């Protein structure tokens, strides 16, 4: 055959790349802390039934006698209410962790669905171009020019209360960000020779879209997805606070804040402040993680 000396480049497995990613990621201790906080919150909220003394969904476990206990007081159940209780005698820590779980479920579900919808629209527009692109992207632009909260509010008011309705409202409010990001990245990628090579082979359009184009536009989308999950969580909280989100029987952080807000002038500030702190910490931590992921995967920062 041909006489060539071929040097063997080091094999870079997925595990090695993951280790590289982590060693880049941990250069910011703030981001590491944020990741630790999110992990703790996710574990605590999904493990809430095993961690907290009370199920705030179960009205049989609530006792009116325990209403408005201050943080640290012991209630009739015989345990300490670390963050106090609300007007129905609900243990606030339990309610917050259950509420956080609802917020995570809604935020992540809405984020993933919006990601899928946005990717479909962005890829279709970028790959086919022409009128399809013009039509789809103008709709997206139109939507991006409106505040997401306004759109989510209208949608939530139309659809009514409940988890699926809120998720749908959030998806409609957020898919446009994913569509725009996908479209931008895919427009660059689709002009590259490997797409042309795949088309001239020829490979079916579906395979080109999902095996060639999609994997190459995914990295920036992961960052957007992280930030959008945080944004979905705070949007949901806002909707619930405004009374168009979830009912108090299914506590989310927003409805807890909203409920406590009624008593804030009665000196029972813990009802609003603690869920508020949890919400803020969650959203800030997710954003910090997203920022650091962006920094690490940015090719300009590669070593």
């Amino acid at each position, binding site marked *: *055959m*041909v006489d*060539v000396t*071929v*040097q063997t*480049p*080091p*094999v*870079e497995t997925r595990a090695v790349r993951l280790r590289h990613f982590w060693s880049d990621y941990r250069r910011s201790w703030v981001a590491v802390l944020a990741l630790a906080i999110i992990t703790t919150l996710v574990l605590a909220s999904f493990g809430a039934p095993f961690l907290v003394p009370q199920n705030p969904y179960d009205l049989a476990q609530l006792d009116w006698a325990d209403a408005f206990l201050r943080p640290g007081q012991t209630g009739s159940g015989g345990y300490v209410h670390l963050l106090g209780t609300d007007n129905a005698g609900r243990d606030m820590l339990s309610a917050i962790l259950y509420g956080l779980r609802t917020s995570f479920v809604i935020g992540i579900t809405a984020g993933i669905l919006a990601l899928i919808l946005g990717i479909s629209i962005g890829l279709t527009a970028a790959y086919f171009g022409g009128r399809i692109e013009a039509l789809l992207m103008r709709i997206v632009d139109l939507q991006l020019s409106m505040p997401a909260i306004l759109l989510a509010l209208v949608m939530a008011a139309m659809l009514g209360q409940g988890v699926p309705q809120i998720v749908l409202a959030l998806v409609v409010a957020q898919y446009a960000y994913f569509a725009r990001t996908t479209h931008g990245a895919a427009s660059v990628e689709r002009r*590259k*020779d*490997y797409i*042309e*090579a*795949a*088309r*001239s*082979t*020829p*490979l*079916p359009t579906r*395979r080109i879209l999902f*095996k*060639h184009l999609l*994997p*190459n536009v995914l990295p920036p989308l992961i960052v957007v997805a992280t930030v959008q999950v945080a944004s979905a969580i705070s949007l949901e909280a806002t909707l619930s606070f405004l009374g168009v989100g979830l009912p108090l029987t299914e506590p989310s952080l927003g409805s807890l804040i909203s409920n406590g807000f009624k008593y804030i002038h009665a000196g029972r500030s813990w009802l609003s402040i603690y869920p508020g702190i949890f919400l803020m910490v969650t959203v800030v931590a997710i954003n910090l993680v997203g920022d650091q992921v962006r920094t690490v995967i940015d090719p300009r920062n590669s070593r």
Partner: protein
Amino acid sequence: MTDPILKIDAVSKRFTRMPGLAERMIGKFTGGGKPVVVHALSDVSLQVMKGEVLGVVGESGCGKSTLGRVVAGIHAPSSGSVTLNGQPIADQRGGNIHKRTTQVQMIHQDPFASLNPRMKVGETLAEGPRHHDIIPARDVQARIRELLEQVGLEGAYADRLPHQFSGGQRQRVAIARALAMQPEVLVLDEAVASLDVSIQAQVLNLFMDLRRDLGLTAMFISHDLSVVRHVCDRVAIMYLGRLVELAPADRLYADPRHPYTRALFASVPTVGTGRGRFETIKGEIPSPIDPPSGCAFHPRCPFAGPRCLVQVPELGALGQGRTVACHLNDGGVELQKGAA
């Protein structure tokens, strides 16, 4: 080397850019805002024989890459046809390609862009043949190893990603990808232009070996006359979307007939000529949006006469398998009675 396997028949390709809404509105006042048409190919006819390597040479923007893309079925020709063994290479409906042949495969210039950076090379090699049932599913792995070894790589490299390879190695992968489809014709679009000179030689030698072993037919598009001389049987010279000279490589290099071909040869820097003088072609390449009248080369041609300004020269046979499109070879550059 007798039957034409690939026939390019009177192919023209125009790219039209429609003005946007804003441009059209502004154009109402300024007189602009009209569609911009680029004549990338004008009436190109060529035949490639079985087992032959045809070189296509010209400056940047002369349409040689467009010709390669039309032959590979990436662009639909605006008029004319490309047939392989008498069959059209692609189904065309309304200016769009619907179904392409697998029998023409292309190798791109830049191996850093032509391989999907997130797909293992084994998968890159396997997906085409798998989808078109060229190889039985159980033989795919063995075939990938065989292909990699055929292009001078190790079979075990199938599990690697493109970024773990050097430029030359990537170009070998791109060649293997094309060969995996078992094509009748390869189109190499500046396939070695982006490689280091030493790597160029390796890849060219690989190509020559494969050509000998597999009896490949190829269209070798390049701007590098010395590379073309090394690998091609016949050479087509293009200028501004037109074919200006076509001749067997040895004759073309010994005795170029078209003034443009001569100018091209004169502009090649050679080693060992002492002072390193070489002629540049005077003037700029005219815009393909607004090509010159008559012979497209006349504004830069030292021999141009009045006839060249008004009449497009036809390709004329000169014997010995060569054709040239120049008035010097069909009756002179002066205006004749009846002509014009």
